[in-house]
Structure formats: C-alpha cells, structure tokens
C-alpha cells in the first residue's frame, strides 16, 4: 500500500505580510539603530583613549607616535566621528532617561524628539570642531 500525500488545498492569492525587503524605512527606528551603532563606535573610541593614556604614561616617543596617528587626516576624521557619536549617544541616552520617567512616550511625540536629538548632536559637534578649527592648531586645514 502506498501512502498518498494529501494534496494541499489551493490557496487564494493573498497579500504577504510586509517583509524587510519591501518595508519602507522609517525615521524612528533609524534614530534607535543609530543609538546602538554610536554606542558600538564609542566602545572602540574608549580603546583608543586608553591607548593614548598608556602612551602618555610610557614616554614622549610613544606619545608622539599616537599623536601623529590621531592628528593625521584619518585620525581627525575618526575623532570627528567619535565626537558626533558621543553627542548623539548622549542626546538619545537622555531621551531614553526621559522616557523611563514615563514622559514623551506618545506616538505623536516620538518623531519630534528624535529630530531634536539629531539636531542637538549635530550642533554640539559643529560647535566643538569650529572652535578647534578657529584655534589654528592644525595649519593644513
């Protein structure tokens, strides 16, 4: 006796649930994902900060070497990225702490507060770096 497989019933054509491939990218999850990514970047920045401290403690040769790396174009680009990451992670972190108190959790207020933290992080980063560029310590810029 051969067991016959039951034929599956013909299913009517129905729309599939939204898949990630065809899901419109939305603003609020981007703000959230960037909080994680900047946190990850800052963990890397901490390693560099420790390396700088260790070089400062070990002597002028090591210090000159790491300052050369940090003030090279790539190094300055990374420092700029870490500055923004810190201000962004700090701003969204404060937003999280405010949420923990139960305030600003309404759906209508989540996107506006997201725009505010992005604006604040960009402004603070520019303020710090414009002050740096204005100080003339980096002649080739």
């Amino acid at each position, binding site marked *: 006796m051969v067991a016959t497989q039951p034929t599956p019933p013909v299913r009517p054509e129905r729309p599939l649930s939204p898949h990630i491939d065809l899901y419109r990218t939305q603003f609020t999850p981007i703000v959230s994902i960037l909080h994680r990514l900047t946190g990850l970047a800052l963990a890397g920045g901490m390693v560099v*900060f*420790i390396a700088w401290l260790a070089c400062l403690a*070990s002597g002028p040769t090591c210090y000159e070497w790491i300052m050369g790396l940090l003030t090279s174009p790539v190094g300055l680009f990374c420092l700029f990225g870490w500055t923004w990451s810190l201000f962004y992670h700090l701003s969204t972190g404060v937003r999280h702490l405010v949420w923990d108190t139960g305030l600003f959790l309404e759906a209508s207020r989540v996107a506006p507060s997201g725009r505010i933290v992005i604006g604040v992080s960009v402004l603070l980063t520019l303020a710090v770096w414009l002050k740096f560029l204005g100080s003339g310590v980096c002649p080739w810029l």
Partner: protein
Amino acid sequence: MAIKSFRSPLGRARGTGSTGQGTDHWWHQRLTSLALIPLALYLIGTFLAYVVWGRSYASARAWLHSPVTAAAVILLIGVGFHHGAAGLQVIIEDYLHCEKLKIVALIAVKFAAGFLALIGILAVLKILLGA
C-alpha cells in the same frame, strides 16, 4: 483550587525573574548613563578640545597631574567601561544566536573591559604620582 499564577510564592517574593538578577542590569545601565553625562562632557571639553589637538607631551602630563582631573578620568574609565560592557552585552545577546559563540563573546567583552580599564587607571595613577 484554580491556578492563579505559574510562579512559585518564593520566586514571587524574591522578585528577581527568570534570570535571577531582577532589574539590576537595566538599573545599572541607567545609573552609569546618568554619571556619564557630566563625565563625557568633561572628556570632550578637555581631552579633545585642549589636549589632543596640538598640545605637547608636557602639557598633557601636567593636565593629569591635578588630582581633580585624575579623579574625573579614573571615574570616567571605570563607569565608562561598566556602561560599555553592559551595552555590548545587550547587543551580543540580541544578535548572536549561536549559544557557544554568545558565551565566548560575553566573557571576552567582560575580560577586555576589565583589562583595558585597569591599564587606563594605572596609566593615570603613574602620571599623577609622577613615576
């Protein structure tokens, strides 16, 4: 008798949930983030704006010769790595689904954070004490 809850009376009294740690991890992440607000702004204000950019070896050492600066930097290192390790733990637990790899990554993050924090604190102490 109808079952009102699947949790044992002892488990309910302890209030620590399935992990056995309650809200400790969540609470420490909040507590360290609060402490890091002034500490991180201080770091940006000094390390980045006054030390790294074009300042000499001698002035950078002089910066850390002050007990106030040294205390702030040591606090920043301790609290910062605590916060960073807690954050990386959440990321690992969310995205690493291979159990063995997850455990190895969690241990590696904890060990690396402890080792790097100790290097940083010893470097600050060495400069502060003028060794």
